[in-house]
């Protein structure tokens, strides 16, 4: 995939070159506010007359194909019910590539069909807007912060559904401020600033680059990947074997037998007790690799277990009390969520 977009607006000129392998299906886009992310999506959707858009995404000429765009605001047509909004989109699809009921179910809007848009909550409206865009059968789906109004469990359900669609052939470009979200679901990622792409590549690499290069930018979360061991229905969670140890989560990203989850550095605690000596279910034995100052007088501990890096943010007070040292073996804990 190679796409070049050039446009000059009132206060921002865009000079973007997106360069990904043809295999890229789910691409993330992030960057500070005002970087031009939404403008880029508008250009790609063909809504900016002044913009020059050239390039292909896996043999699809960007300027030629049907592109769906989901705005930050859901923008459901106010005079139509949810069901009518969805049917209208399906009516104008060139061909039906998705089963209506499946999309409705996948976006969790099956119970909203007769409701009018003004009666929906922000999260419900966003889900309907995503479903509407998918039912229009675009070749490329552009999403601008599509799940920002959803609560955690729904957010992951919708993102999982989008990931499924992308594996089925739909190309997705998603803007998000939440790097964890992007790291979890996208295979490629671009970081945009002041109208240009600063970093792009496989999502993990981009995250690593961002961590090392951008001043003041910190890796604030850890990514755990492993084999899905079991779905514990009674406890309402999944068991994942990560680096030989079991961890549990309610909303891991599941891709076949693989599972993945991310944990914010603020949510990880470190202690010297054994892994099973706490009410906190998840405890990973790991080694301290580094201790560095972080903002607000806190310390960032970099831990390692096997190949997995773990980041834990602890307070100065804890360090004065416990005196963690590099090379020490500790337990990194985080709650089952």
């Amino acid at each position, binding site marked *: 995939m190679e796409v070049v977009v050039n446009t000059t607006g009132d206060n921002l000129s865009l000079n973007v070159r997106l360069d990904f392998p043809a295999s890229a299906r789910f691409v993330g886009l992030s960057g500070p506010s005002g970087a031009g992310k939404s403008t880029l999506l508008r250009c790609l959707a*063909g809504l900016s007359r002044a913009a020059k858009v050239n390039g292909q995404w896996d043999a699809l000429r960007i300027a030629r194909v049907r*592109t*769906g*765009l989901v705005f930050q605001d859901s923008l459901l*047509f*106010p*005079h139509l019910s949810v069901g009518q909004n969805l049917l209208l989109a399906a009516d*104008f699809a*060139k061909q039906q590539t998705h089963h209506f009921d499946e999309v409705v179910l996948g976006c969790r809007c099956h119970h909203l069909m007769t409701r009018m848009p003004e009666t929906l909550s922000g999260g419900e409206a966003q889900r309907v807007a995503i479903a509407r865009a998918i039912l229009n059968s675009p070749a490329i789906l552009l999403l601008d912060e599509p799940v920002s109004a959803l609560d955690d469990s729904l957010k992951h359900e919708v993102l999982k559904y989008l990931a499924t669609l992308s594996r089925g052939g739909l190309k997705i470009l998603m803007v998000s401020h939440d790097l964890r979200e992007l790291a979890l679901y996208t295979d490629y990622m671009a970081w945009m600033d002041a109208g240009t792409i600063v970093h792009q590549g496989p999502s993990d690499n981009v995250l690593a680059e961002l961590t090392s290069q951008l001043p003041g930018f910190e890796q604030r979360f850890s990514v755990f990947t492993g084999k899905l061991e079991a779905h514990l229905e009674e406890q309402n969670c999944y068991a994942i074997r990560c680096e030989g140890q079991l961890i549990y989560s309610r909303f891991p990203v599941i891709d076949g037998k693989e599972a993945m989850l991310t944990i914010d550095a603020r949510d990880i605690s470190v202690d010297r007790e054994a892994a099973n000596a706490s009410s906190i279910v998840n405890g990973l034995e790991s080694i301290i690799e580094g201790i560095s100052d972080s903002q607000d007088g806190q310390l960032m501990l970099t831990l390692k277990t096997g190949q997995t890096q773990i980041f834990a943010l602890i307070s100065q007070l804890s360090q004065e009390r416990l005196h963690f040292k590099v090379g020490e073996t500790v337990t990194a804990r985080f709650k089952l969520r």
Partner: protein
Amino acid sequence: MQSDIDAIWLTLKLALFTSVLLMLIATPLAWKLSRWQHKAKNLVLAVVALPLVLPPTVLGFYLLVVFSPNAVAGELWQLITGEQLAFSFAGLVIGSLIYSLPFAVQPLYASFLQLDNRYIDVARTMGMSKWSRFRRIIMPICKPAFMVALGLSFAHTVGEFGVVLMIGGNIPGETQVLSIALFEHVEAMEYGKAHALAFGLLVFSFLLMALLYRYNRNGVTAWKS
């Protein structure tokens, strides 16, 4: 009595012709104006709004001049239809179109200005044609404004007096509308007949306005977002 019924019938016919034609003219005009960014826009808006403040007799006088067989427009009309434009029903319709134009354009213009452009963007990405976008998105969302524009231009045409008197005169069955019939009764000191017409107009106008306000309130509250 018969002439009064003729006048009522003629007035309704004139108002219907005028308001329906006005919707066809005012809709694209209001749309263009709402999307137009040019220095001359204020001038065009002022021209459209002119009949709001201009004495109807002034408008009527200039229309009469233009309609005269000696003027280009009047001559052309006579050449095509074989009839003269002044003192004819067709002349009345043209006069009414201009006279009531702001009442049709203003509500539509305001509504189109308020319309979130991104609804149209969404419709465009969905592959909807211009006409589909207008019929299935813009028109239903702006429906209250269309109803107000239609109602106001109808009511305003029904109440027309000065312009009609200037360009239509007072020909029963051809150009004698309600307000002029009423004026005639007063001139002839037939206060009973005048009262019947005047009161009828009063009730009609009141009912129409009440209906419009009620509809508009519902229209606004139903779609607040």
